[in-house]
């Protein structure tokens, strides 16, 4: 990935995004032709199809990251100077001064994992390239996000395998994750969202692994994931709730004292690793600035994006259908309805695009159909809870994260608080549940597959054709 980034810089392709997009399109066509030929020859296996999907998912992420400068479609980047208060300033402080921020203003309150990793990568990429400006130092940090986004895709495939999703279901789930637009968006941006998604998914995966096999390897990996995850963003604590329930469930099943002692020992070790790793920065900020671990910047100075004057039912229960049919894009200044805002930001972030309206409209409509099927799948899983195993956990984790989102937006009732980038993991859980739905051969398979096809095609085309 770093090589690609350097290549683009060296060849000057960064100033010719159309060429990168053409390359993405060409790769897509090539893979499609390959799949069709394999199909015609009867050689199309699940593994081959999966490889193509993952490959193209990675191409889309990398392509998007390469043709999108860090100042485009970013969030809170701020001034590209070490004196600022945005993500750029955070990175530059680390790069130039070699130390953590001395204030918690703006984005400087954030946990440091992404910035430390970004600095490291940036130094590797730019350190050997002469004449790098602060812009490039900041821009290179996107590689961390892109890497995390790609790893999320690979990890999702592992989760599907662990859950023993069947052929069709697994392909559907991985396709949806591969071509979920917010994965490209967060992967091509300077910010900790992509890493957060990766850590959440890894935590979920290793919790399931731990449930299967309570080995030292699994618990230490889990502890490290939580440690680094919390060091990346404290809202990783939501997933910790899920893991805590599984821990307690396993503890409940322990019958003899020796086993109990071992189990408790493992938990203690896990806590000893994860807590200092995850919370040291939060404790530092609490000591230095009196900052709460759940701190987020106050937005009361931007009353235009306040949406707390709408009723809870309008915001969380009903769907704002009129909004859904008025524009495909989210508008943090006017929108107030969480479900619709989440769908829109999952597909387009908080941005508008110059493209033929057919692509965003079809992407949105297919997305809505997929959400509809996700809800049906959720209900089906809950209804058949006794035989659902890991899928019930997926449903539980989905509900937990969604509930945390409701809690967060209720506490911070602003348009931008409802952005899907905070809960991209929901998309992964939804895709797994949809895979399960397809495997179970419930009604509407044809519609689900059609909607998924349209979704993936529109997602690829849109993010290749945008100007």
């Amino acid at each position, binding site marked *: 990935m770093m090589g690609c980034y350097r290549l683009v810089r060296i060849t000057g392709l960064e100033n010719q995004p159309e060429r990168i997009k053409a390359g993405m399109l060409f790769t897509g066509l090539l893979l499609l032709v390959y799949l069709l030929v394999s199909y015609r020859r009867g050689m199309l296996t699940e593994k081959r199809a999966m490889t193509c999907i993952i490959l193209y998912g990675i191409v889309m992420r990398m392509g998007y990251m390469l043709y999108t400068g860090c100042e485009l479609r970013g969030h809170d980047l701020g001034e590209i100077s070490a004196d600022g208060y945005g993500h750029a300033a955070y990175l530059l402080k680390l790069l130039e001064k070699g130390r953590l921020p001395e204030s918690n203003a703006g984005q400087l309150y954030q946990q440091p994992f992404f910035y430390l990793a970004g600095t490291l990568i940036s130094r590797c990429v730019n350190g050997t390239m002469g004449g790098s400006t602060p812009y490039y130092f900041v821009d290179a940090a996107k590689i961390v996000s892109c890497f995390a986004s790609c790893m999320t895709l690979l990890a999702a495939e592992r989760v599907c395998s662990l859950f023993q999703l069947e052929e069709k279901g697994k392909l559907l789930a991985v396709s949806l994750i591969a071509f979920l637009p917010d994965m490209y968006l967060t992967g091509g941006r300077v910010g900790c969202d992509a890493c957060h998604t990766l850590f959440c998914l890894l935590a979920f995966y290793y919790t399931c692994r731990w449930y299967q096999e309570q080995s030292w390897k699994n618990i230490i990996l889990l502890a490290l994931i939580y440690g680094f995850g919390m060091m990346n963003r404290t809202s990783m604590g939501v997933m910790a709730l899920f893991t805590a329930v599984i821990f307690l469930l396993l503890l409940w099943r322990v019958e003899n004292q020796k086993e109990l002692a071992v189990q408790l020992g493992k938990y203690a070790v896990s806590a000893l690793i994860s807590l200092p790793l995850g919370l040291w920065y939060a404790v530092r900020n609490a000591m230095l600035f009196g900052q709460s671990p759940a701190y987020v910047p106050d937005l009361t100075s931007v009353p235009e994006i306040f949406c707390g004057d709408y009723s*809870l*039912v*309008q915001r969380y229960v*009903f769907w704002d259908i009129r909004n859904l049919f008025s*524009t495909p894009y989210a508008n943090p200044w006017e929108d107030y309805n969480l479900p619709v805002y989440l769908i829109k930001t999952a597909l387009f972030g908080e941005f508008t695009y*110059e493209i033929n309206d057919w692509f965003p409209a079809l992407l949105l409509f297919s997305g809505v159909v997929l959400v509809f099927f996700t809800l049906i799948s959720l209900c089906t899983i809950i209804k058949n809870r006794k035989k659902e195993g890991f899928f019930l956990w997926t449903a539980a984790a989905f509900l937990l994260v969604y509930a945390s989102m409701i809690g967060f937006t209720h506490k911070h009732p602003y348009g931008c608080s409802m952005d899907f980038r905070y809960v991209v993991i929901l998309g992964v859980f939804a895709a797994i549940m949809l895979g399960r739905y397809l495997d179970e051969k419930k009604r509407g398979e044809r519609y689900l597959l059609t909607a998924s096809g349209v979704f993936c095609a529109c997602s690829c085309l849109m993010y290749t054709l945008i100007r």
Partner: protein
Amino acid sequence: MQSLFWAAAWYGFIALWLAYWKKKKGMEGSYTGTSCLAGYLLGRAFVMLQLRHLGAVAVEAAVMDAGTVVLCMWLAGKQRLGFRWEYVWLYVSNPVILLSLSSLRKTGAVTAALLLVLLIIKLGGIGRWERHSLELYRYYISFTACAMIYLAARLLLGQSGSQCTAGDGSYPMLWILSVSLAAATAVSLLHRMTVWRKDSVMGKASEQESAAESEQEASASQCLPVSDSFNGRDIVFLVLFTAVYAGLAFFRLGSTAAPQSYVKLSEDSDVGRQMIFRFGEEIELSRIEIFLGVESGRKISFSCYDYDAEKWEVFDSRREIASVFTWNTVPVNRKTRMLAMVLMDEEAYIHEIVFLDRSGRQVLPVNWQDYAEVFDEQTLYPRYTTYYEGTMFDEVYHARTAYEFVHRLPVYEITHPPLGKLLISIGIRLFGMTPFGWRLACALLGTAMVPLMYLFARRIFRQRGPAVFSTGLFCLDFMHLTLSRIATLDIIVAFFVLGMFFFMYLSIAGLRQEGLTLRSGLCLLLCGLFSACAVSTKWTGFYALAGIAVLLLGYLLTEYASSWQRLMENRRFLGRLCGVCVISFVLIPAAVYFLSYIPYMWCGNPDSFIKITIDNFKLMLSYHERTVFAHPYSSEWYEWLWNKRSLLDALSFVADGKAVSVATFGNPVIWWGGLAALLHNIYLWRCRKEKVAAYLCIAYLSMLLPWMFIYRTVFIYQYFICSNILVLLLGNSFYHMGRYTKRAMLCFGLAAGAVFLLFYPVVAGYPVRIDYINQGLEWLRSWGLG
């Protein structure tokens, strides 16, 4: 256009959906040339009546449409191209044609017609696809849906394909949806056709599937519980429901005390047209509260005496004191020693005046004894004025007119017949001109509707469970409670309308069981009496009257006049019945209607009551035709169905961030569930020939459909008489759920109850924090509750 669109959409989809179900149940042979012709005439008449301006283009399109229908009917009659009557029905009931005609687009109409005919020919004409016809029906309905969405995008939102690349921030989302759905449906159809060609087993499977579903339905319909007899338990339920509802209706209904004595300001009165109040020393007045008497909208100028300049300074000229029998606030916010009020109209009745200083304390002028009548009930001024102490919404018309009847004053409100206001006046006679007094009759009639509803439901379902369920829901409906607690005519007319349908049901049941006996005749007479009272209260009673006429005629036609021979056999019976009906539905209503105008004569009108009635009839007709004005709470008939817009009757802000709000709208659980129940009942009526469903659907539709053709400004409370049927529709739907009936009723009832508790404060005007109203209760943006 929106009204027409929704009407066509509802009509078309219900018709097509029923056609699908009939096909599924193998009843497609039930279509005849007559039914198709009736469907055609009804559908087109429906469009023409909704259109206000018919241009030549519309006539041309209608002629072409008629030509297409004739062609289709000829093809079906001769059985050419595999055409059958069911396909003619598919054409005539298609909403796309209705909308194309109504949008006055000849090209659109013709294109749509041609496409439809081609599609139908495809449906019927190819014999080898005959067994897939059910699936083809689905495609037909899907294409129709796409076309409807397309028309909505084009006609209602003005969207088009050219906007896709315009880049001007306008997104033709609905247009894209319609086109992409149509494309997807077309692709799917083509794919299916390929599969059908290859694999004939698919058809068998679908047939087996539909047969299995039919069997399932048949077995479900056999699960209906047997009827149980009316006994002591019913009385217990009846009393319990009535008592609980009475508690809800009368709790904080209104104050039993309000300022009664008054000063009349006019040239010929003792006081004259002005009042001057002296306060002795200089005080800082914040506001004046005036409890106005019978004349509304009085213009009064307020002035303070400036001792330095030695002259009167007018600080509020020609201020309108608008509402009668409630406190009207006049802000002052100035220091003064002397204040004057000068009436700018002919006369005004002032019941009480309260002066308040900056700290909110009441201040009495030193010369208060000069106007003792306006200062003798100072303790009745509440700290915060709410609905409890005065009139709200249309009470300013109806309660006032009832007061005028009591005191034989000239009648103010003459846009509705007088019976309802005469009933309101009974409460005023008993408890004086107080909020409790003028709301008493409505609360009593609202409460009386509960046992009436129980008896009606009990008679219809012949089962206690659904009756208890329906009555329980009826008690939990917001609009029922709100209208029981406000002195307007809607609850009164609703009571009579419910009685009309109840007694008509008893009449028909009696006629069916034992012919025209004393009991069934008495029921008809009672139905007539209730009809008389309904139309003498509000003209919406006429819609219900049309509904019961349809029900009775429908029954007679099917039972006694299905053929000429049967008609002849039953002519004596029908003759006697006709006589009873003339007495019940012509003579009694006419008599009651005319007699209800007698009090006008006592109120200073020199004409005979017959002349007064006829003159008032003409006036009402012209008034309701031209009452078109913008109102923040007005709504269209199709918006009532999903409870879109509430009507705020009263809103007052009281201490500690609390507000007292009274809003008229429906319990969303009942109304939204009722909408689904309506569709289910239409299905039961048309596909299962279920008589109760037929009765309820006709009752409901007879009171809703007229509103489609009414252009005056209307409000959600006009749907109330209709919404009462929803609980019975729900009861009937749940009654047909087989073994799930009890559990489903319990869950639905609990949901309705929970929502009722949640909304109780804004339904009954209970003080509650404004945040709770805004954050917790405003489920839709159009619900202005606080």
